[in-house]
Structures are given as C-alpha cells and as structure tokens.
C-alpha cells in the first residue's frame, strides 16, 4: 500500500477513466476510435483490480493475475478487431459506422 494516499483516490481516477471511455464509445463515429475507447475502459478496470489487490488483500496475488489476463485478452481482442476493421475498409473503403450498415453485399 502506498503511504499518504487513501484507497479511494485510486478508485476515483479509475472511475473517471472508465466513464471517459464510455463517453468516447457513445460519441465517436469511427471504428478505430471506438476500439480506443474500449481500451480505456479495460485499462481502468485493470487499475481497479490492482488497487483492490494491493490495499485489501496484500497477502494474495489474485488481482495482479486478473489484470495480466485482462491485458492478454485485450491484446487478442485488439488484433481481431483490427483485422476486421481492415477487411471492412477493403469492402466499404470507409470505417465510419454510418457507412458500414450492410451485413452482406
């Protein structure tokens, strides 16, 4: 635990980061920027896991392992999503969500 900094300060930062990601997800109109908002959301959840681990259960490591697995899943998700985005760009020559409204040609 970090001396001089209460537990809830970290939670405030991660909550704000989470809802900034939500805001971006709701207002952005481009697939890549949507993906970036999702990365922000996942990252804020990671902060929460790690901080709960350090402050409430410092004798265990569950939070750290969960954060590691989340990072791995985020990497897998980003790679598949970007492959899909590139494929969509080839078909529609645009990755704005408004232009991509057909499921099949």
């Amino acid at each position, binding site marked *: 635990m970090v001396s001089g900094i209460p537990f809830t300060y970290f939670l405030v930062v991660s909550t704000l980061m989470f809802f900034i990601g939500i*805001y971006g997800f*709701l*207002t952005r*109109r481009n697939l*890549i920027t949507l993906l970036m908002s999702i990365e922000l959301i996942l990252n804020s959840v990671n902060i929460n896991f790690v901080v709960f681990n*350090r402050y409430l259960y410092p*004798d265990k490591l569950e939070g750290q392992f969960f954060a590691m697995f989340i990072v791995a899943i985020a*990497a897998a998700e*980003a790679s598949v999503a970007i492959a899909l985005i590139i494929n969509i*760009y080839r078909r529609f020559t645009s990755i704005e969500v408004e232009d991509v409204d057909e499921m099949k040609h």
Partner: protein
Amino acid sequence: MGNNAFMFYLFSTTILVFSVLAVTSRRILRAAVFLLFALVATSGFYFMLNYQFLAGIQLSLYAGGIVVLIIFSILLTHHISHKFDRPPLMNLVLGILVAVVGAAMSIYTFMKFPFKASAAVPVEVDMRVIGLQLMETGTNGFALPFEVISILLLAAMIAAIVIAKKAK
C-alpha cells in the same frame, strides 16, 4: 506534499487529461498518441503500487503492442490530414450526461462503502512467486486460466491472419 502524493497527482492528472484528449481529439493519429500517454501513466500507477512485473507488461504489451497496432491500422485506413466532424449536439449532450451521472453514482456509492484496508503482511511480488503461481495447479494456482489464455491468443492470431488476408 510528499513524494508519493506528488507522483500520484502527476500520474492521475496525466491519465485524466490524456484520456479526455484521446476521446475528443478530432485527428485520429493524435488520439492514438494521447491514448499511449494515458496507458504509460497507468503503468506509473503500477510501479507506485509495487507491481513491477505488471507495469512492465503494461508498457510492453499495451503501450508497445496495442497502440502500435492501432497506429498501423490508422495508417492503413486513413489519410493523415483527415479531420473528423464534430459529433452531433444531441449525441454530445447525451454522452456527457451518461458519463457524468454514471461517474457521480459510482463515486457516491464507493465513497459510502466502508472498505477495510488489510494489515496483512504484503507478499513479495518477484518473478519467482509469479512464475510458481502461474504454473501451480492447487490452491492459489492459475495453471488453467494460463493455458486457456495461451490457446485464446493462438486462436486470435490465426483468426486475425485469416480475416485480414486478401481474398483470392
């Protein structure tokens, strides 16, 4: 103000400012770079909390891997000079409303909840402990999720190649 507090405020300001810029910037490449700064500042949090290994993962995988992947895909699909339109006013207002109300509700809730900080002796997080726990099959072991994650990564990689390659 102590060292810890100074670093905490530095990192949290960086995280918040660059997160906001990453979701509001109208140039997509800049947004990606702002996202990179937010992720690097997050790894600073992990260093503060003494999880050096996790901070290393955060730097190499998130900041080094995912952001580079995003930047590559931006370069493949966009003109650098392209600027987004502003989001419609209705979307903007609704988005801000959802974010503010959600954040206020969550913060109010966890401020009221009596968390009990544990006084247990912190476990020393070195590579030996992490490696042993990752391969352990009994209690406190993470062998199964570790294997599942590796299969998932393999499947995701193959899927990405299959999806992104040009159709003949």
